[in-house]
């Protein structure tokens, strides 16, 4: 949903986010919702600037989000408060699951299919009865014993098994009743520390603001994703919103509050190691991906919109390899690098520490401050042969070799560190042309307004010229391994004395054009799998629909009394759609659920879907269309007129996810990798799929280790941005938060005889840091499982560079990964706290 659409919400839950502090401009729409009578709820371990503007503040200890959300799901189910008219047709609540399926409630906290040897799940018993549903995620192929392709084809053969009376013991509804049964209000209080009465007020507000006339939204950020159960936390929210009918409608949805430095854009045209641009799967040596034919066979979903995948894949290959891509060489598929495992940031860091990775480019990131277990990160950097750092101010990462943790502690001296570090100054946003993609997929063009000083260059300049030089070297070397480099198209025009590549040329390629004529295409519907189109990112098609039309430049807002979707303002992918799955804003007959919440609807006279947004449906598909199963329909022919969720192979919102999530089809509460308490719900303590990487310097303690009794969370501050350096090096922002501090509950401070501004030391198995205490009532002790635990919070954005300085909180945190994303945990850890300062460094 769009940020401004929040103003149309009747209830907004901010959770896993400190929105007022970290998205202050977006928060204006929350305040506007409040002006229209909305209920604002903030669920958080700390009382923050967001909480101050909320109607309800629900305190939970960090690491207990799923317990809270699952409690809400149970509340909705047992009170029959779900939006039946929406849920029955639009979700898979009635779908029948394989009889072999066993829930966590039956097996000590594990689902059926757990393979102790590989420490992973086989997903056969999670499937729809008699079928295999490919995952809707980038990688559609999933690990099953049954042959994947033949079983997936069954999706085209018959309607999916369901029981609309919801009586069948293995229908999703009944499974959910069993699964969520133990998340009672009492258990929610025991697990999260949130008083039952407050928890119930949250449930009541959400339920009261759902249905035909009212909608609610969730806003989340890294408070949810930086956990070993991050994906499942978001899943729990999706189930809530699915049950309440809060998807695809006005003022409804789940808004992922992404970062400001175009992080959405950087995952779209990606820097995600395991995906090709716009969320296509990347070939892997561990999968049946040897040839393009094999790859397309397993990754092309038989039903739903992803059936078009080959068109996007081949068009991408054409864009990258141009004339070197031919039918006979499978469009250059062999040139693509293949995954050989988990190449995410943390594993790469460990490979650096083990001497496997020799060189590193660090572009606009400050891992010495922002990456967990900074000591191991720096040990890794110290083992590299070379490292290139590009930023617009001197960062801790660039100076790790002379002022970092290792040097300060005396573990190494600068002359021990053989890494050759290159620091290249980079241009800032206002010093270059290009687009920024914001948190609601809106891509806005920005013009350069001033020159960057000296030798500073844009990232586009750097990447282009690096590639150009590598191609020149490859042309001379004639090495087989360089074939992919030689084949790569790299013909962007450059301008001016500095030979800056034309970013509009890049955007035109991302949009896509015909090959070889290079006529811009108007939408991804024009893409083909026969090599006649090239496209750098199918989701962005339509952003540059003709040679001179750059839609990301447009700035036409709706009139004051207009539809408030602002379709004339820039470009939102896909196809300038503002609300995804907006067919769900109309009932099965195509009529809006209510006038108040109308968005798109079926126009019988014109025979198409129309409305205030670009409809997210086949334009002419009638609401009463039903697939003709006798013809084995594929793609969109297998999706009926009442199935809005077209990217999911069965067209329905997945309350239960049969495929693709390595830690389970339903969310279950697991404790963080280090916790002071046992899991109150199951014998299984932590996420069974959790990626653990024991390594010297990255040890984990056992549950309830008395050395580390407090729960620690880390956070950002409004005043200090991203990895910190941009604002710490800038006097006007540095003076606002000039020094590291740690927020301590009053009760804990009293036992330690600590007052505000006293020095304290925090310690974990990874190390120690010092900070000034800020004693506050905004953090509190929690009663968890009958046990009193103190919640402590510390900002992680400080380093030794700039005007605002302090120790880096990431000295304390361990490396571990969420099973789906390999994402680190920064929000729930344990620590000890004592009055005093860290010992002075051993003389170096």
């Amino acid at each position, binding site marked *: 949903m769009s940020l401004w659409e929040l103003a149309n919400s009747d209830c907004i839950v901010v959770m896993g986010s400190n929105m007022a502090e970290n998205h202050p401009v977006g928060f204006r729409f929350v305040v506007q919702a409040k002006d229209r009578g909305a209920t604002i709820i903030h669920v958080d371990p700390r009382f923050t600037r967001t909480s101050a503007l909320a109607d309800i503040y629900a305190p939970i200890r960090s690491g207990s989000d799923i317990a809270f959300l699952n409690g809400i799901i149970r509340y909705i189910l047992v009170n029959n408060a779900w939006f039946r008219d929406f849920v029955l047709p639009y979700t898979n609540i009635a779908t029948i699951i394989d009889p072999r399926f066993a829930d966590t409630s039956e097996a000590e906290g594990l689902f059926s299919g757990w393979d102790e040897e590989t420490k992973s799940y086989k997903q056969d018993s999670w499937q729809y009865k008699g079928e295999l549903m490919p995952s809707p995620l980038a990688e559609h192929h999933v690990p099953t014993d049954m042959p994947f392709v033949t079983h997936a084809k069954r999706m085209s053969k018959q309607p999916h098994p369901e029981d609309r009376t919801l009586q069948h013991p293995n229908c999703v509804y009944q499974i959910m009743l069993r699964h969520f049964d133990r998340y009672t209000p009492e258990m929610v209080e025991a697990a999260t520390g949130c008083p039952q009465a407050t928890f119930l007020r949250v449930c009541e507000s959400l339920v009261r603001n759902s249905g035909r006339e009212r909608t609610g939204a969730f806003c989340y950020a890294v408070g949810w994703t930086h956990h070993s159960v991050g994906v499942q936390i978001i899943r729990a929210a999706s189930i809530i919103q699915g049950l309440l009918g809060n998807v695809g409608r006005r003022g409804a949805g789940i808004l992922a509050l992404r970062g400001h430095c175009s992080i959405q854009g950087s995952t779209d045209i990606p820097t995600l190691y395991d995906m090709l641009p716009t969320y296509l799967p990347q070939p892997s040596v561990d999968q049946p991906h040897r040839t393009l034919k094999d790859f397309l066979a397993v990754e092309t979903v038989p039903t739903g919109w992803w059936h078009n995948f080959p068109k996007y894949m081949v068009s991408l290959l054409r864009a990258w390899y141009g004339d070197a891509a031919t039918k006979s060489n499978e469009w250059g598929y062999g040139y693509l690098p293949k995954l050989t495992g988990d190449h995410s940031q943390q594993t790469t860091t460990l490979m650096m520490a083990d001497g496997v990775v020799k060189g590193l480019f660090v572009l606009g990131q400050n891992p010495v401050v922002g990456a967990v277990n900074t000591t191991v990160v720096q040990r890794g950097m110290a083992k590299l042969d070379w490292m290139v750092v590009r930023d617009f101010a001197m960062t801790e990462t660039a100076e790790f070799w002379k002022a970092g943790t290792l040097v300060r502690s005396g573990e190494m001296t600068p002359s021990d560190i053989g890494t050759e570090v290159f620091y290249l100054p980079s241009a800032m946003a206002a010093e270059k042309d290009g687009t920024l993609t914001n948190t609601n997929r809106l891509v806005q063009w920005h013009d350069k307004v001033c*020159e*960057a*000083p*000296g030798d*500073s260059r844009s990232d586009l300049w750097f990447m282009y010229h690096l590639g150009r030089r590598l191609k020149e070297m490859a042309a001379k070397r004639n090495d087989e391994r360089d074939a992919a480099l030689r084949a790569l198209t790299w013909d962007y025009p450059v301008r001016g004395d500095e030979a800056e590549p034309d970013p509009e040329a890049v955007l035109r390629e991302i949009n896509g054009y015909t090959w070889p004529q290079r006529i811009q295409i108007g939408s991804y519907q024009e893409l083909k799998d026969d090599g006649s189109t090239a496209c750098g990112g199918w989701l962005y098609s339509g952003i540059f629909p003709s040679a001179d039309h750059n839609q990301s430049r447009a700035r036409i807002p709706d009139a004051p009394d207009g539809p408030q979707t602002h379709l004339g303002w820039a470009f939102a992918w896909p196809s300038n759609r503002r609300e995804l799955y907006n067919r769900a804003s109309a009932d099965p007959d195509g009529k809006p659920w209510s006038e108040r919440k109308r968005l798109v609807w079926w126009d019988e006279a014109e025979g198409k879907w129309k409305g205030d947004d670009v409809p997210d449906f086949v334009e002419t598909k009638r609401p009463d269309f039903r697939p003709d199963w006798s013809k084995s329909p594929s793609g969109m022919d297998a999706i009926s007129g009442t199935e809005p969720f077209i990217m999911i192979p069965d067209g329905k919102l997945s309350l239960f996810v049969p495929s693709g999530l390595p830690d389970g089809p339903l969310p279950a509460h697991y404790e963080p990798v280090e916790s002071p308490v046992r899991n109150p719900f199951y014998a299984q303590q932590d996420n069974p799929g959790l990626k653990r990487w024991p390594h010297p310097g990255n040890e984990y303690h056992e549950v309830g280790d008395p050395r580390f009794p407090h729960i620690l969370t880390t956070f950002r501050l409004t005043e200090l941005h991203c990895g910190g350096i941009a604002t710490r090096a800038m*006097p006007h922002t*540095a*003076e606002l938060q000039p020094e590291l501090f740690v927020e301590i509950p009053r009760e804990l401070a009293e036992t330690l005889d600590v007052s505000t501004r006293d020095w304290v030391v925090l310690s974990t198995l990874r190390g120690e840091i010092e900070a000034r205490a800020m004693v506050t009532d905004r953090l509190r002790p929690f009663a968890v499982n009958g046990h009193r635990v103190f919640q402590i919070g510390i900002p992680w954005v400080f380093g030794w560079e700039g*005007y605002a300085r302090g120790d880096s909180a990431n000295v304390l945190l361990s490396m571990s990964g969420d099973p789906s994303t390999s994402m680190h945990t920064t929000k729930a850890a344990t620590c000890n706290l004592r009055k005093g300062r860290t010992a002075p460094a051993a003389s170096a």
Partner: protein
Amino acid sequence: MSKIVRGRILFAQEGRFMLRTESGTGQLFVLSHDAGVEPQQLPPLQHAQAEVEVEFDETPGGLSAVARAIRVPDDDLAGKAEAV
């Protein structure tokens, strides 16, 4: 011991100005009370984009600089004489 920097005034506000230094970065100055330059003399220097030499001290913590003197270097005097 005061420092010297050369550059052109980007903007001037009351007794404060931002200098675009020779290296291309910006540096903020506040006129000292004994600088011998009055606030109203800054806008003409900025409009003329005259190259100036600023003698300054840094304040403790280095967050801003106090301009002790502003001079127009000899090589730039022709054509800019009316500025100071």
